[in-house]
Structures are given as structure tokens and as C-alpha cells.
């Protein structure tokens, strides 16, 4: 076992070092390739989910470290952001050195979605790594008539803050959208119409950003009432075998009470008879 571990570590280091010196050789046609799908917020969000499971373990959150070397680099650095969509897609598909090719693991759409996600940093935001940590503030406004949620980031350089909108569910937060702010620090998102709430359509949304190196952390929870109302029938509320004692089926309740009562009535009758024995003695005397 010890040997296997050593060999494994050696191989990994080797692969990594190859990568540092390796140059990406990308064909000219691949560089020119453009995405077949539009870079929508949904596509970027889908890409983020894949990025978080497939890429983040090595590349971290884009812009979090700003490290160019050793590989794998931060994907928020300027040299990376200058790449074309086609170049990034090719790199994801074919891999290089220590990075495995993903074309067999991920569909073409998934790979483009990752490109879209990485592009959200590219198109609108240039990451300024010189900015020190600033604890930004977050305010959330609910626009009821439009079913919109507006996040307002303030308190410093509010450009390029990645704000996430979520819905609270039983076992965690369901992401709706992740959007980056522009220089105004404001982002607005429309609440999707397929999110279920309680029977009156109430639910809670959570808006937050979490970038401990640059913007700090903030989270705001708000109640909204435009989720799809769901009339949930709790199987525990009707009388059933699996219910609590008070929800016992009537037939079993009456059978139990009836049988127990009858049996004990006879027992008590017999006990009373025994007590009558003394009286029976007196009658004779």
C-alpha cells in the first residue's frame, strides 16, 4: 500500500510538472469556434454546477487565488480571460498534461455551458486582484408586482460581485440564478414560475455572496408569496395503520375497545361474584 501511494504521488507530481512546461497547442479552427448555444444566465448557471463538481477541485473558484503557476492555474486571471470561447472549449474537451480530456465525460452542451460560466467572468468583469478584501453589504428588495428580486451590493468596489439567488427547501438551498453585478452593484432576477411553496404560495428566498478573499460574505433571507401553491395531503393526517394512536383506523379502535371491554367485564363480574360469597354465607346463618 505504501508503495502504491508513493508511486501515485510521484506520477501526479510528474504530470503536474509536465503541464507547467507544456504549451497548449490549439488548432486555428478550434480557436475560431463559437458556441452553438446562447450565453444565457441559465446556461451559465448550469455550467457553474458542472464546474463545481468537475473543475473546482483543481482550479478553485475563478478569481479566488489569482495564481498563474504552478498548474492548475486560477481561471480568473487575465491571460485566461483573454482566450476565445473556442480555445476554452478545446481545452476542456482535449485536456493537456495533468488535465484529463472531458469530451468523453461531458456532453458538448455541458462543455459549452462551462465555457459560458467562465465567460461570465470574462465578458463583464475583469478581475482586479490588487483589490484588498472589502466587506461589502447586501440589501434585498422584493418587487411584488413583477415577481422580481433585486439585490443591491454596496460599501466599496461593487463591480463583479457574484450574487446567488436561492430558494429554501427542506434539505438545503435550491439555486435559481448566479449573476455578477455591474458597477452599479445591482442585480435583478425574476422568480421562476415552477417553484412550489406552501398551500398559500409562501416560500423563502436566500440571496447571498460568498467570496472571502475579495468581497466578504453576506446573506439575506426574505419571504415571498408568489411560489406555486401546493396542496400537500399529509398521509399522517387521515386515520391509518401507520398513524399515531389518535389516528388509528376506527375498525381497529372499536375492535380493540370492544374485545378488551367485554373480556374485562366478565372478569369483573367474576370478581364481584367472589365478593358475594360472604353474603351468601350470611343468608344461611
Amino acid at each position, binding site marked *: 500500500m505504501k508503495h502504491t501511494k508513493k508511486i501515485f504521488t510521484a506520477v501526479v507530481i510528474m504530470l503536474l510538472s509536465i503541464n507547467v512546461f507544456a504549451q497548449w497547442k490549439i488548432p486555428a479552427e478550434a480557436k475560431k469556434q463559437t458556441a452553438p448555444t446562447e450565453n444565457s444566465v441559465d446556461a451559465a448557471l448550469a455550467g457553474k454546477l458542472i464546474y463545481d463538481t468537475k473543475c473546482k477541485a483543481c482550479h478553485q473558484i475563478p478569481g479566488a487565488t489569482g495564481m498563474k503557476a504552478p498548474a492548475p492555474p486560477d481561471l480568473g486571471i487575465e491571460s485566461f480571460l483573454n482566450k476565445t470561447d473556442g480555445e476554452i472549449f478545446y481545452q476542456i474537451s482535449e485536456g493537456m498534461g495533468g488535465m484529463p480530456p472531458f469530451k468523453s465525460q461531458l456532453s458538448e452542451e455541458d462543455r459549452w455551458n462551462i465555457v459560458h460560466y467562465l465567460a461570465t467572468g470574462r465578458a463583464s468583469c475583469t478581475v482586479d486582484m490588487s483589490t484588498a478584501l472589502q466587506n461589502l453589504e447586501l440589501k434585498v428588495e422584493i418587487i411584488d408586482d413583477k415577481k422580481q428580486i433585486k439585490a443591491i451590493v454596496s460599501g466599496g468596489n461593487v463591480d463583479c460581485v457574484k450574487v446567488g439567488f436561492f430558494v429554501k427547501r427542506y434539505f438545503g438551498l435550491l439555486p435559481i440564478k448566479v449573476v455578477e453585478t455591474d458597477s452599479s452593484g445591482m442585480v435583478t432576477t425574476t422568480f421562476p414560475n415552477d417553484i412550489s411553496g406552501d398551500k398559500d404560495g409562501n416560500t423563502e428566498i436566500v440571496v447571498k455572496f460568498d467570496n472571502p478573499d475579495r468581497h466578504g460574505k453576506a446573506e439575506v433571507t426574505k419571504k415571498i408569496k408568489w411560489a406555486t401553491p401546493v396542496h400537500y395531503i399529509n398521509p399522517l393526517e387521515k386515520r391509518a395503520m401507520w398513524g399515531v394512536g389518535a389516528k388509528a383506523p376506527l375498525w*381497529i*379502535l372499536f375492535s380493540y375497545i370492544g374485545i378488551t371491554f367485554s373480556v374485562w367485564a*366478565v372478569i369483573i363480574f*367474576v*370478581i364481584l361474584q367472589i365478593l358475594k*360469597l360472604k353474603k351468601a*354465607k350470611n343468608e*344461611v346463618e
Partner: protein
Amino acid sequence: MLETKKSLNKIVSDLTVPIKSHKGFIIWVAFLLAVMGLGFYAYSVQLREGLGATALTDYISWGLYISSFIFFVATALIGMLVSAVLGLTGIKWITPIARIAEMIAVGFAMWAGLIIVFDMGRPDRLLNVFLYARVQSPIFWDVTVVTTYIVISIILFLLPLIPDMVFLQKTMKDQPKWKQKIYKMLSFGWKGTPEQYKIIKRSIRLLSILIIPVALAIHTVTSWLFAMTPRIGWDSTIFGPYYVAGAFAAGAGALLIVMFFIRKSYNLQDYITDFHFDKIGKLLVLTLLVYLYFNINEYIVPGYKMKRGDDHHLFALFAGKNAILFWSVQIFGMILPILLLLWGKMRKPVPLLIISIAVVMGAFMKRYIITVPTLEHPQLPTANIPVDFMIYWPNWIEWSITSMAIAGAVLIVTILAKLFPVMPIWEIAHEEGISEEEMNNFEVE
């Protein structure tokens, strides 16, 4: 049945003198108390450390305790079979053994209730069974019927004692005060008036009828604790009658053992004769045959189909890790006793004693075979389970506590047999043709 006519005085003295003699009694009780003492210590360890002190795990959570519980309930059923079923059909020869059967019923039913408490990691929460009772739960039904059966058995034991108390009051004048007080209290002012006889006979008859469904219920519900789950090996529609049939066999065996020792130590050869042994021996072989029939059904029906899951379970029983225990129980506890008991020669007291011990031990281990192997096959697919989760063998704490329960039940039988005549004097006298008036005017010679 009793060859020569006996005088009332002889009957009273035959049945009361053994109560006064303490030869061997102290040693026997000391032995039982010692066994119980060990069990008591084991229980104190279990109380302190919880069920973790036992070999039970969260996979095999029902082990020796629950097996013993079924065995105790089973044995207790003999009271109903003898005094109610046979009694109501007008069979006269049960008179000398009905009370012995009833003593077994009282002793074993009481300890059956206690064993359930031993199987609780937090017995202080016992009251929650009632506070948060779910009428849908077979466990709640079980608590109800066990309690009811204990009460009926005690009353059915006490009722035929009432007329005997007068004889005891007259013959036990040399005995300690507390004993005399008990006799006086339990006589309920018995004078032997026709009205009193009418009340006693009517009450006994009423309870004898009532105890049949209650006794069937107690053991059927006990089987439902298993059969109401969809688990392999328990998911069976014949579990109720299967248990009841097994219970009668176990009870008849236990009755024969107790009969043998009471007859020997109390010199009651004139009352419990070879005739009685022959009859109860026949009852035993009958119940065993019925039980065999249910066994064939219980194993051949799933065994023929070999559904997935059943195959593992049945293989473990027939040829796998439980095979030795399974076949020992089936052969020595059922098949061999049936074959032997078909011969009249084997239905004599001594061979019957040996066969009965085999039947009772087989009955005890059979409950284990029903309870544990099923739990050794988990319902859901599992992975990476420690090996010792899948293997169970009771540790010393469980053996000690179970021994305490057995000793405790035997102690109750011993004490009852020491406090009261083991047979109803008045009924035996009645069968001897002694009139009620003669009994009322009884004086010690």
C-alpha cells in the same frame, strides 16, 4: 380412576401433609434463589450499561430474551388446555392435575411479562407503552392480552382454592400465623352453602370459557409480533396456529415434568397414577403431531417455491449455519418424541419425564430458531457491515437473566405448591362420593 374409595380424612391428610414437610424444600428454594441471584446481578449490570451489555446488536435486536418470552407464553398456555378445554368437555381425570397446570400458567405468564421488561434498554420508559399507546400496534395488543391472561389465570387458580381453604384452616393450626391469615382471607367466608357452591361453579365455568379465546389470543398476538412484519421467515399466515400448536406441546411437556416431581416428592402416587401420565402422554403426542403438521406447512410451502430471500433463510436452517440447531430441535424435540410416544411403554412416568425434558428444551430452542436466523438476514441490501453484526450468540448476561426467569417461574410453582394443596380437595372428595354436608362438617381426626 382412584381404585379404592378414600375417606375425606385420608384425602385431606394426603394433600396437606406434604405442604408441612420441608424435606429438601429449603435446598431446592436455595438453589433457585442462587440462580436468580446471579440473574439479578447480571440484570444490575445490564441496567447500568444498557442493552449494550448483551450480545444484541441493532441488526439482531431480538435474541434470547424474546425467544424466552415466546417460550414462557407458550408454556403458560397449558393452563387453558387442561382446565378449560378438557375440563369443559367433561373429562374427569384432569381433576388431580388441573391445579398443577394452572400453577404453571400463573408462574410462566407472570415471568413472560417480566422478560419483556428485561429486553428493554430503558425499562424506566415502560409507562410510555401506555402513555403513547397505538392501538394499531401488535405490541400494545400483546401487553393487553398478557395482562389479561395473567389476571384470569390467577383468578382461575384461586377460585377452586376457596372451598379448600376451610380444610387448610382446620389442619394448619400448627403453621405460622401469616399462613393462617392467607388461608382465612382466601376462604372468602366459605361455609359450603348451596348458594356458595353455585357461585363458585358458575364463576369457574364462566372463566373456563373466557380463558380459551384469551389464551388463543395471547399466543396468536405473540406470533403476530413476528407475522405482522414482512420479514422473511416471519411473513407467514399460519404463524398464529403454528405458535399455538407448539405452545400446547411445550406446555404438555412442562406439565408432565412438574407432575412427575410433585408426585414423587409429595407421595401422590395414589392420585397422579400411571393412567394420568398415559393420558397426558397421549395429549403430548397429539399436540406434537399437530405441531409437526404445522411445521411441514411452515417449511414446505416457502421451500417449494424458494422465493428470493426465502432461499437464503431456508438454506441457513436446513444446511447452513443454523442447521445443527434446527435439526436437533426438529428431531429430538419433535420427531423422535412422536415416534417414541406412540408406544404405550414410553408413556410411563420415567420415560415420559425424559421425553418431556427433550420436548421442552426443543421448544425453547425452537423459539430461538424462529427469532434469530431471520434477523441474521437483513431486509435491505447492506455493505461493509462488521462481521459480528451478523452473528449472534447470547452472552453470559442474557443466559443469566433467562435462567433467572426460568428459576423464577419454577419458584412461583414451588411456592404455590408449598402454600396450597396441589389438587382441589373438595373436587376429589366429591368424585369419591363424599357429600357436601360431610365436607362442611369436616374435623381433624
